[in-house]
């Protein structure tokens, strides 16, 4: 019973956070409610006895990916948007409701057919979840594991190539007022020149 109550709490807050993230006018609110949703998804994983996945969810999603998003938000200098909905919004919501009912109709009665595997909740608990994951990951999933490193490598290359232009250039940070030009000006100009915005 307690497990059910916890499930309804975690699931409800997850869905509520997702809805707020998608519909909020202020993009910072969106990011923070997405954070709430991610942390509660970690709670759902704990209910499913997947403790390592829960820890990874909090470490990577809440701790790293969302911080990355927030940094980029701060690069954009966010403000509230007036016309924030796309013109296809009504059609989109209608389609979403239709798809939701179709998927629920298709998926609600799902049951596991056939014999379950050896790793019941009790067995996982005795072995330790991280050990179970490790044993499967580095034997059965050896090739996907190495491919994952390639995906990360390509992401690193891509992000540096795309966004790293001008990393070497000596330049004030974008949007800041740079006053170092004053030293380079000839002495005779007595009146103060206009401020120069450097960057972008």
């Amino acid at each position, binding site marked *: 019973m307690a497990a059910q109550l916890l499930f309804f709490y975690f*699931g409800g807050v997850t*869905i509520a956070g*997702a*809805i707020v*993230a*998608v*519909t909020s006018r202020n*993009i910072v609110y*969106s*990011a923070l409610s*997405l954070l709430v*949703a991610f942390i509660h*998804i970690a709670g*759902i*994983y704990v209910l*499913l006895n*997947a403790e390592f*996945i829960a820890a*990874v*969810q909090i470490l990577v*999603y809440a701790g790293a*990916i969302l911080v990355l998003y927030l940094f*980029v*938000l701060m*690069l*954009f200098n966010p403000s509230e*948007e007036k016309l924030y*909905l*796309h013109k296809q*919004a009504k059609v*989109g*919501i209608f389609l979403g409701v239709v798809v*939701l009912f179709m*998927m*629920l109709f298709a*998926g*609600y*009665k*799902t*049951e596991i057919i056939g014999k*379950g595997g*050896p*790793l*019941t*909740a009790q*067995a996982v608990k005795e072995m330790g979840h991280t050990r*179970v*994951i490790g044993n*499967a*990951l580095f034997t059965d*999933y050896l090739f*996907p594991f190495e491919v*994952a490193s390639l*995906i*990360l490598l*390509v*992401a690193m290359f891509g*992000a540096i190539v*795309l966004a790293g232009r001008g990393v070497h250039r000596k330049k004030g940070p974008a949007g800041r007022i740079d006053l170092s030009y004053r030293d380079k000006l000839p002495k005779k100009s007595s009146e103060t020149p206009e401020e120069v915005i450097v960057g*972008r």
Partner: protein
Amino acid sequence: MIPLSYYIVVSTTMFVVGLVGILIRKNFLIILFSIELMLNAANINLVAFSHYSGKVDGQVMSIFIIAVAAAEAAIGLAIIIILFRGKATTNVDEMDLMKW
């Protein structure tokens, strides 16, 4: 004891919320947020099925999905930064340089 279908309902709803978010919003970053929501919905499904079938494969897959999501966030944000430098907007409708 929580039935498997409860988890399916949560993950389906999250997936559809992400889908609707992609369709209705103009802002770039919100669209990326929605993609993250859809990936997380898939993760919940994988972990739930893995738990109820007594195999660990789904959870391993969910770790791979998390890795792919991180790569996707890095690349997607780099693309957004490039576009933002060019146009100084986050509206996807104004990114129509390739449109005839």
